[in-house]
């Protein structure tokens, strides 16, 4: 008997390398890499390119490890939600135990390697970020309170602070502001997604705001958080990481974002359903561009500063 005569169904369930990589949530990792890189390059201390590259890589691995632990804990609800049903665990390609082992191993590995490559503070901050995402957000807040995404959003906001810490070995007003920008951006971004994902979270029993407080209240929350976000985003232009390029980008994007939030706030469910949540979807798309361009503008200011073009 050759191996080829084994049960075909079992064979197709065996994971490939890409399935293990998918455990690390590559799309989230790309955001982590980009914001951490901006934090590192915007810091007023030069970092050797090799150390910068290795540090960003270990931050990415740490972010990926927390993604694997999130999938390990949330395997039951991932199997219910359409958006997450094709993830490696619910699709049967990777077991929960494997995800846990990979997540824990990579978490420890990434924190130790980051501490060795850059400094201990950066390693500890990465460890705290993983702890916050896995224990505070995934295990505690996510299934308990509709404010889950508000507080849990902090986990996704730490990478630029870690990048800054790699360069400086500490925290400063600028790095806290970069944290605040992502922190304030997360709720409107996620709530817009919730509005057009409809019953996914309700089916999984996750108390998202639109499930517990209704969709009208969620629309109001999106507007309020968007206004608060605009204050932070535009205010950052007048700090050490800001400048005329950033200010221009921030004014345009926040104008568009506020207009989108007002438009969402004024709509009722019947109208939204009639056009298949067109505005909610475009607001969500804009939110991705919003964060990318804000951090891109910070990067532009930092890159052009040595030539006398960036900053004030």
């Amino acid at each position, binding site marked *: 008997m*050759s*191996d*080829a005569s*084994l049960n075909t169904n079992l*064979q*197709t369930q*065996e*994971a*490939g*390398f*890409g399935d*293990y*990589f998918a455990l690390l949530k590559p799309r989230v990792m790309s955001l982590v890499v980009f914001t951490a890189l901006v934090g590192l390059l915007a810091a007023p*201390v030069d*970092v*050797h390119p*090799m*150390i910068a*590259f*290795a540090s960003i*890589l270990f931050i990415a691995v740490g972010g990926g490890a927390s993604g694997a632990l999130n999938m390990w804990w949330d395997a039951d609800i991932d199997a219910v939600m359409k958006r997450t049903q094709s993830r490696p665990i619910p699709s049967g390609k990777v077991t929960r135990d494997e995800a846990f082992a990979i997540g824990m191993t990579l978490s420890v590995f990434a924190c130790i390697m980051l501490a*060795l*490559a*850059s*400094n201990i503070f950066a390693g500890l901050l990465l460890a705290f970020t993983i702890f916050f995402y896995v224990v505070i957000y995934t295990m505690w807040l996510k299934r308990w309170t509709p404010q889950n995404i508000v507080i849990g959003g902090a986990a996704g906001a730490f990478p630029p602070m870690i990048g800054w810490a*790699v*360069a400086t*070995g500490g925290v400063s007003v600028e790095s806290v502001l970069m944290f605040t920008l992502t922190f304030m951006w997360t709720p409107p971004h996620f709530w817009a997604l919730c509005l057009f994902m409809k019953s996914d979270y309700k089916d999984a029993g996750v108390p998202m705001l639109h499930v517990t407080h209704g969709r009208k209240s969620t629309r109001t929350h999106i507007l309020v958080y968007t206004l608060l976000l605009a204050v932070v985003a535009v205010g950052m232009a007048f700090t050490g990481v800001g400048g005329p390029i950033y200010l221009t980008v921030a004014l345009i994007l926040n104008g568009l974002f506020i207009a989108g939030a007002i438009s969402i706030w004024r709509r009722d469910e019947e109208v939204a359903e009639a056009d298949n949540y067109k505005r909610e979807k475009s607001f969500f798309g804009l939110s991705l561009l919003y964060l990318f361009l804000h951090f891109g503008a910070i990067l532009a200011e930092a890159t052009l500063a040595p030539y006398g073009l960036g900053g004030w």
Partner: protein
Amino acid sequence: MGFQVEHELHKRRLGRNVGLAAVLVGFIVIVFGLTVVKVTRGDYEPENAAIQN
């Protein structure tokens, strides 16, 4: 005709092994690069021990 039939399962396992090998080689290269940079800059000299970047 060979005795062993190549199956999708084998391809997947090969992909996993090659992927893991690439990760391990990449890790060795990174650790080597970091070591060269840190030693060349004298990070481990007693007077520079506090400077880590």
